């Protein structure tokens, strides 16, 4: 049960530190109604996190991030990107300059219809992205995981043979959870059995249901983004140790809510069995995201 230190970790959720004044969470405002989130919170889920990192990245956030990754043995990190230069300048540069260290996932908004489908195709062709990502409860208007608007995106992911990473479970930001109810994934996996669907952000409080579905649907996977290792749901750890060693993947949340120090300090205490560790930290991601 010892965590190996030499596997070359793949982190399925990492980002370059935000530039000063970047309006990172501006997109969420339209869905927020409460004053505290609108007027006071810098990070809309901050009430859930202790010690949200505020790294001083200097003028080269890409270099800074690489140094952090080296410190913790992270060989590759997946960055969320969009075609918006304002939002993604640093990530796009990172992909271009360090293709051996970073790979991209395109943030999709199904509200944009065929434009979103076309963007995804273009992102694979031009940016070499390895996945699509979506935050159903954060979209405006919100789009449930099993909504018709998502279906052309799912179909395109299958055509392009890339996974889609989707937030599932009660979201931290104070927006309705209904679009990310874990039960909705069942219908999608049934209709698109070929779709590689990777959950993000914990699936809580429906972790038991998530495990049932992970067992039921061969192409459904779980990633641990936004959860400090000490809070990984028991049901998921147990599943990884029994039938699900190939289905659970490491994702961090740096710098959005967790520091790498904290993640890798807590990580060795997760009671994964020996055979799970290399799969969890690297091999599953390598296979699902086709990185080799």
């Amino acid at each position: 049960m010892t965590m190996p230190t030499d596997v070359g970790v793949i982190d399925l959720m990492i980002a370059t530190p935000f530039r000063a004044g970047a309006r990172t969470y501006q997109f969420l405002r339209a869905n927020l109604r409460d004053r505290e989130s609108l007027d006071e919170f810098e990070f809309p889920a901050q009430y859930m996190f202790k010690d949200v990192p505020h790294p001083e990245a200097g003028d080269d956030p890409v270099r800074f991030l690489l140094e952090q990754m080296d410190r913790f043995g992270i060989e590759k990190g997946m960055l969320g990107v969009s075609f918006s230069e304002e939002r993604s300048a640093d990530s796009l540069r990172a992909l271009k300059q360090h293709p051996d260290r970073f790979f991209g996932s395109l943030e999709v908004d199904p509200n944009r219809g065929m434009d979103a489908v076309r963007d995804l195709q273009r992102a694979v062709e031009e940016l070499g992205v390895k996945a699509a990502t979506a935050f159903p409860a954060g979209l405006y208007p919100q789009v449930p995981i099993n909504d018709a608007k998502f279906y052309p995106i799912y179909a395109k992911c299958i055509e392009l043979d890339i996974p889609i990473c989707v937030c599932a479970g009660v979201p931290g930001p104070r927006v309705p959870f209904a679009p990310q109810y874990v039960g909705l994934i069942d219908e999608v996996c049934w209709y698109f059995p070929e779709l590689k669907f990777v959950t993000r952000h914990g699936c809580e409080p429906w972790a038991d249901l998530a495990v049932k579905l992970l067992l039921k649907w061969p192409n459904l996977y779980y990633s641990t983004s936004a959860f400090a290792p000490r809070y990984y749901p028991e049901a998921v750890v147990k599943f990884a140790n029994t039938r699900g060693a190939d289905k659970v993947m490491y994702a961090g949340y740096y710098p959005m809510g967790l520091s790498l120090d904290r993640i890798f300090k807590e990580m060795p205490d997760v009671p994964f069995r020996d055979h799970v560790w290399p799969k969890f930290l690297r091999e599953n991601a390598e296979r699902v995201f086709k990185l080799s």
Partner: protein
Amino acid sequence: MSSEAFEKARADLGVIDTMIGFPAPREEQAKHYDFIRRQTHDADSQEWEFPAQYMFKGVPHYDKVDDPVEMLLAKMNQHGITRALTGMAVDGNAKIALERHPDRFIASTNTDPNQGMDAVRKLEQDVRVHGARAVNCWGTGLIPQVPLNDKKMYPIYAKCIELDIPIFVYAGVPGPRIRFAPQEVALLDEVCWFFPELKIVTRHGGEPWSELMVKLLLKWPNLHYSTSAFAPKHYNKDIIHFANTRGADKVIYAGYYPMGLDIDRIFAELPHVPFRDHVWPKFLYENAARLLKV
């Protein structure tokens, strides 16, 4: 440890019971539940005196009650309950109690959103003219049932915000044999999102969705939980843990006398609830005092 802190909080501040009723003779009490029987389909519910009686041991029964107000007050005094939130219109008792002992009783009005604008106007009247400081709505017991996130609730919620009063609603599977759908815990999420200013207090446990209940209590600053209808030995573990960690300000004491629990039983069990010391004064008094503006 826990029980000392309980005693100290009770002695220093007193206790607010956010759900209490006046004792009544058996037949009268049984008749009070006719509104529930009307929407049950099983034979037991038609016969039982109390439609959730299969869940409770030692439900209080009285053959005769001389003065319900003084009888309740004596019970309260015996256990250090300094104030009680009570309905306004169930019978004449509430009126008497509120007039005779305004320092001991706080009025809560009841609402039926099926009444549309009449319900909105009644709510406003009861608060502005008759001094109600909270409103109660058991949507699942109404005919037709009104789910927590139903549009009929929305004008009521808006009015609560305007009047700046909390609404007490019911969450979790109800004891009486009627459908639970209108009070599934998950429904609260949408309401709290659309009305972030609305002060909501859940009643009757939120079970079996207590994990979700905790998630939502953490997520929504104006959502609260009260322990009505649960004997302290059955207080939900997730809720106790939440109160002891991040939720000390969100969990509120409520009993269930005389409907299902005797106050003697509640206060025999209460000191054994493993709340941490700092939780007790908030649980017994301060959280309710803040919401009800005591």
